[in-house]
């Protein structure tokens, strides 16, 4: 079962995302700020981290940079999910080591397709209920 970490400071966004991921059959965890994301990620070893960029304290790009330095995060994919859609914002995410960039609101079906591709890439059978 794919482990996914949701990092998002708006509780409604974070919680609903985690619920939907669970309904799809994934194991998901939620944190509401960057510091907590760094603590949890090392232990939880998620396959994908969904990362909001406008976070209080350490912002999403900085979180991405620090996650990339963790040895446990070698194969982890970082997906930015953000409301900032300017060219400069995308560029900043790329430089921070983010693999995919999604503009809010993301179509959940598109996200699900992405996750299936991740699963196939990891040679895991897709998890269905």
């Amino acid at each position: 079962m794919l482990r996914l970490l949701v990092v998002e400071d708006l509780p409604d966004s974070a919680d609903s995302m985690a619920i939907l991921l669970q309904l799809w059959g994934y194991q998901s965890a939620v944190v509401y700020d960057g510091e907590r994301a760094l603590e949890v990620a090392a232990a939880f070893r998620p396959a994908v981290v969904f990362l909001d960029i406008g976070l209080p304290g350490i912002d999403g790009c900085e979180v991405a940079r620090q996650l990339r330095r963790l040895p446990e995060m070698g194969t982890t994919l970082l997906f930015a999910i953000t409301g900032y859609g300017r060219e400069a914002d995308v560029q900043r995410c790329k430089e921070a080591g983010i693999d995919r960039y999604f503009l809010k609101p993301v179509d959940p079906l598109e996200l699900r397709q992405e996750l299936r591709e991740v699963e196939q890439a990891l040679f895991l059978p897709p998890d269905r209920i």
Partner: protein
Amino acid sequence: MVDQVNILLVDDHEASLLALEVILQPLGQNLVKARTGKQALHLLREHDFAVVLLDIRLGDMNGFEVAQTLRAQQRSQHTPIIFLTAYESEDFPPAKAYTLGAVDYLVKPLVPEILRAKVAVFIDLFQNLRLRQSERRLRALLENAWDGVSLLAPDGTVLENIPDNLHRLGYSQEEYIGHRGFEFIHPDDQPAVQEAMAQLLQVPGAKSKRQYRLRRKDGSWCWVEAIGTNLLHDPAVRAVVVNYRDIDSQKQLEYELRRQAEELAEAHRQKDQFLAMLAHELRNPLAPLLTGLHILRQPQTTPEAQEQTRAMMERQLHHVSHLVDDLLDVSRILRGKVQLRRERLDLGKLVRTEAEDRRAVLEQAGLDLLLNIPTTPVWVMGDPTRLTQVLNNLLDNATKFADRGRKVTVQLAADVEGRQAILSVRDEGIGIEPELLSRLFSPFLQADRSLDRPRGGLGLGLALVKGLAELHGGTVEASSTGPGRGAEFTVRLPLEREPPALSEAPAAAPTPGKHLHILVVEDNQDAATSLRLLLELLGHEVQVAYTGPDGVAAARQWRPDVVLCDIGLPGLDGYGVARELRLNPTTARVRLLALTGYGAEEDHRLSREAGFDHHLVKPADPMELQRLLEVS
């Protein structure tokens, strides 16, 4: 090269004229001949002559008469006369000739060398006079022209200067001449000017143009444009000639234009940033709404999860509506399009009720709400909806910036002497930087993005508070003793003196459970269907029409109690539908409710004029809709 001068030869004998011509030819001047006195006087009126050689005996008049007349003529007043005569005569004594202004009296036969030498003296005199005149004229030109001229030695020492230039800068000749010109140039401009001068000195006749600042005597700087010309090789000049033009006002204008351009660019940058932030803020609630829809769609979602999701979606939808309302409100307030519905009201009661309503939200955020409101009424003339908005925005602000576990204090006082109601909201949060206080109320200006953004909102709340307070004839100010020390926002509104004459009438109790026939006219199928479902749930009978003409037809046929009508409709718009229904006796008395996305004052007026009883702005609050239907 000095121009030729005119010499007038006057004699009635052709041979004599010819002889004079031969003698004077080598002088290389312009020899003009006259054979009569009259002709000579005419020429002297028309032209300038360096000297007149005048024979005493002429055909028409004698030389003395000619001399007298030419002296009386303005032009020839000072023209030198050399009298020529064949012999000394008693009729024409030399002494008399000199009194008439002759400079010489020569008796023929003439010695050519002597005559030439004498005439040459007068040519020289005349040429010098002409030079002096032209020099005076040039100087007058330079002195009266604005621009200044300096002559500089190769090392930059000022040799000569047209004074007027110096008067403008405030120096006397002594303070300038003999000094190095570079001393007066702005230190920042000196290297460029020195370099230009060095290049100029290398090529005779070269020109160089530069703009730089010259120090005035009072220490201020004057922008000039200078053109230097290397005339060191010209033996008559032997200097670098520098022409100045004052371009100070031009530079001021340039500076002003540049400043305006920068301001515009800054405004553009702010707008850009605001739009990016607006997109971010609108996308934020859309994300969980979309996620929520998918959760509800999953068959395995538990009833608890469904309920939780619905509540979340309601919150987020409310949040989006709130953002859109704020945005439109700010735009309307900035354009002065908001009209207050003012009434005499007890601000104490309003603040107490609204603040208590918000207590739960604040407590959820870990904040303790303290109220300090007098029990006696605080009367103001105000729009209750707008004053509630002021209080709510201030409380929102406090909630965003206060730290958990701290207090938020709402205080109201009536300053009877100052005739002011003073409402303040104080938090114990992160406080405000002093330089930010003044900018806090301007819309679209986010103070510190990194700090403000994660706390959410468009940053329009305070701009709205200011606009609304001012519409009420009041003021708002922010104070903070600094970062980390909390902040206090104080709104002052004019206090009403007398208490109201009448006590409030009790509100009419709604009659529940009314069963109505309702026609929904709405072209958006989803909106029409959801409205139909809601109204049916409330126990009413509902029909739907999707165009204006269908709506009018259905109303005539079915005769509903209420028509809920969209404004933007195909075929016939909502205003048209209302007019049609009001005109037809069968539908004239129907209750007409407009339901539209247009919420401006102007739209309310238009729908009233078209015959609507009420104007509801989308998304309509179901509670409000129910209340309106119950009084139908």
